[in-house]
């Protein structure tokens, strides 16, 4: 749902001179199918072994009882992520400026809560306005 919502602001983000990059720990073949099914044009990159998630300090290890639950659903995170660790990143959305500095951040330990795409658009607009004022 979040992917489709972000796809919905794709053109506006592009018009503001920014780019949407989605990171997932899943191996390429999994998001590829979704990318096609949802007819997405935004980029989905595989964050192999959660290396980037670690650097953003988003990665966490699933407790044993949750691994069992995932297994019972047939959700094999170890296979999807090509690692035995059963880790996930907390859902997060960052706005990063052209100097590599984080200008907006939304991180939630509750995976059912996501930031509205319109909030991200507002952050990008504010960033552009500020940049103009400085220049």
């Amino acid at each position, binding site marked *: *749902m979040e992917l489709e919502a972000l796809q919905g602001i794709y053109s506006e983000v592009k018009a503001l001179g920014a780019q949407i990059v989605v990171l997932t720990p899943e191996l390429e073949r999994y998001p590829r199918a979704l990318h096609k099914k949802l007819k997405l044009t935004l980029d989905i990159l595989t964050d192999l072994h959660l290396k980037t998630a670690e650097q*953003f300090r988003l990665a966490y290890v699933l407790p044993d009882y949750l691994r069992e639950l995932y297994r019972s659903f047939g959700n094999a995170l170890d296979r999807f992520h090509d690692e035995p660790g059963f880790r996930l990143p907390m859902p997060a959305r960052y706005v990063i400026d052209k100097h590599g*500095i984080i200008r907006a951040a939304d991180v939630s330990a509750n995976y059912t809560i996501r930031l509205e795409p319109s909030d991200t658009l507002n952050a990008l607009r504010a960033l552009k306005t500020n940049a103009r004022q400085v220049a």
Partner: protein
Amino acid sequence: MGSLQSRLGEFKRRFEAGAPPYNATHEVIETMHRATAELEGLGLANKALKIGDRAPQLVQSRSCRSEFC
């Protein structure tokens, strides 16, 4: 189409009502609530990178860009 959060809320409501195709049991839902509450309790979200921090370079990312998908 409503807001992202309202659509997620609607999905959650149906899931927790045991709607198909998930047919989640009370036990499954309780387990998921416990896991979320525990993760929130750890305060990890406050330790993640914040506004003003330098973002790490993307490492070892392999692409699923639209033109390849």
